[in-house]
């Protein structure tokens, strides 16, 4: 992007001052897509933190109480193990609470967790509608539709990322797969799947919240208890998505991150030409 100060001139002036050439950009993300994307960071964080605090109240995964600790919660076991094996944590005051104190609002605060979960849940549903509106208005929805070739292409992308660190260390050539669409297949798969998972989280959430008035919805997921299990594992999709997503956004360069703030990108390509980077 040009940083020089353009001469102050009218677009159609007859002045002899040279006009600054315009910058060529592509519109990449509609404002509503950008808005909902960033707001989701806060909302998802709130949902996961409050959600795990809610989980504490009646963990899905339990075993017979341990004869030594009295603990029956598998998640608490993880905390107990961490405190026992990580130097510096051996004297931690309450090992069974470690996971909840570090991955959630905290143990023993069900009422507060529920309140925050509703604030974030209703916000998520509203934000989801904003996102859909943005995809529709900007036409970006077309770039997210899955294709028949996506499965193999996504695996090729995955193989590229797996081999990338080794190729870098061995200083060997490792070719980025060609693609001529807005997103590569792995991106498209991820960016399509995560909102679908979001819809399922909302659906299972309602099934848990209204298992009598929406008993048909709970039945779709296998009943009340099964809906809780779905809801728990769907949460992991967001957690496991976010880490590679953030890493790859940064790895892709400033233009990519910036485009989700300003909505445009200077990477203007003719559609037949793919990107071939090492």
């Amino acid at each position: 992007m040009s940083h020089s100060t353009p001469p102050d001139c009218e677009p159609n002036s007859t002045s002899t001052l040279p006009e600054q050439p315009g910058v060529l950009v592509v519109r990449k993300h509609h404002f509503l897509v950008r808005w909902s994307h960033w707001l989701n960071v806060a909302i998802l964080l709130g949902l996961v933190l409050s959600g795990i605090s809610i989980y504490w109240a009646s963990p899905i995964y339990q075993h017979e109480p341990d004869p030594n600790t009295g603990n029956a919660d598998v998640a608490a076991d993880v905390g107990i193990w961490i405190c026992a094996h990580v130097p510096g944590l051996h004297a931690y005051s309450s090992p069974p609470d470690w996971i909840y104190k570090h991955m959630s609002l905290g143990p023993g605060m069900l009422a507060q967790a529920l309140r925050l979960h509703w604030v974030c849940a209703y916000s998520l549903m509203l934000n989801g509608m904003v996102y859909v509106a943005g995809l529709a208005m900007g036409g970006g929805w077309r770039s997210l539709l899955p294709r028949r070739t996506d499965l193999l292409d996504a695996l090729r992308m995955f193989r590229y990322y797996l081999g990338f660190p080794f190729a870098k260390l061995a200083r060997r050539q490792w070719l980025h797969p060609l693609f001529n669409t807005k997103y590569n297949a792995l991106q498209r798969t991820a960016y399509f799947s995560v909102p679908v998972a979001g819809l399922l989280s909302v659906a299972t959430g309602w099934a848990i919240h209204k298992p009598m008035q929406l008993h048909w919805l709970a039945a779709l997921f296998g009943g009340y208890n099964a809906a809780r299990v779905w809801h728990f594992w769907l949460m992991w999709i967001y957690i496991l998505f976010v880490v590679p997503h953030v890493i790859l956004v940064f790895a892709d360069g400033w233009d990519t991150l910036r485009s989700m703030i300003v909505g445009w990108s200077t990477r203007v390509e003719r559609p037949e030409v793919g990107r071939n980077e090492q």
Partner: protein
Amino acid sequence: MKSVSVKKPQSFFGERSLPAIEVAPRLLRNQSRRDFLVFGAGALAALAGAEFLLPQDTLSRMGMHRNMDSPGKEWFLNKALRIDDDVAEAFYSVNRRVPTYTKSQVTPLKNNYNGTTPDPGYISGWKLTLGGLASGLTISLDIRHVLTRFSMHEQITRLVCVEGWSAIAWWAGLRFDDLLRAYPPMPQAKWAHVESSVNLDASGNPDPYFMSLDLATAHHPQTLLATHFHGQPLTVDHGAPLRLLVPVKLGLKNVKAITRITYVAEEPRDYWAERGYSRYDGI
């Protein structure tokens, strides 16, 4: 030689090439600055919102020890509960039945007294006191009267706790609706205040339990005043001799060892609502 570009036929669902536009650098810079400011302000607002809304304990653990509790915070968070309660009430229908099960599907139901289980000594002299009646009288019923005066209904339904666990249990008792017909509340009553004076806290001290029940739900055909559990008279663990069984609401509304029901016009106090939980609790 002029190159000819052939436009490929585009389907509605087909990927479109991103529209490239030429923008004056000044315009681009201004727009970018605006967007960075807007989203930067948004990020700050999110952080401020988090500091405002997160529980005090969580904030302290993160290193923020300033007391953030305020009436505004409580108001906002309770508003979320009330909105959710209103949604729950909108879902309610007196005609919608909760799923019922067979005896083979019954699952263990633990003693879920929040504090200590009351001493069974209260059972022998137990009476159910009814107030706020249309007749203006205060009525006292003993268990014999309850068992003989009303027809008993059996149902096997799921009890769902606010904590997330649930159990399928076999109950029998009279319909709350039948009690309302036999002893009608005063006409302006919209609520039942259901109390258990024998409830105890974790140390065994008296901790009367009470909750608000909207009369619409009390009339629901599956709302029972249960006297039997798994074919036997209720034990003290499960709220002998009479408890509420309202499957369209969360477990915390299913008061054990009911001692008094008062019909009132305004929404009465609710034990768990005063401790930060919701009020209507419809599921």
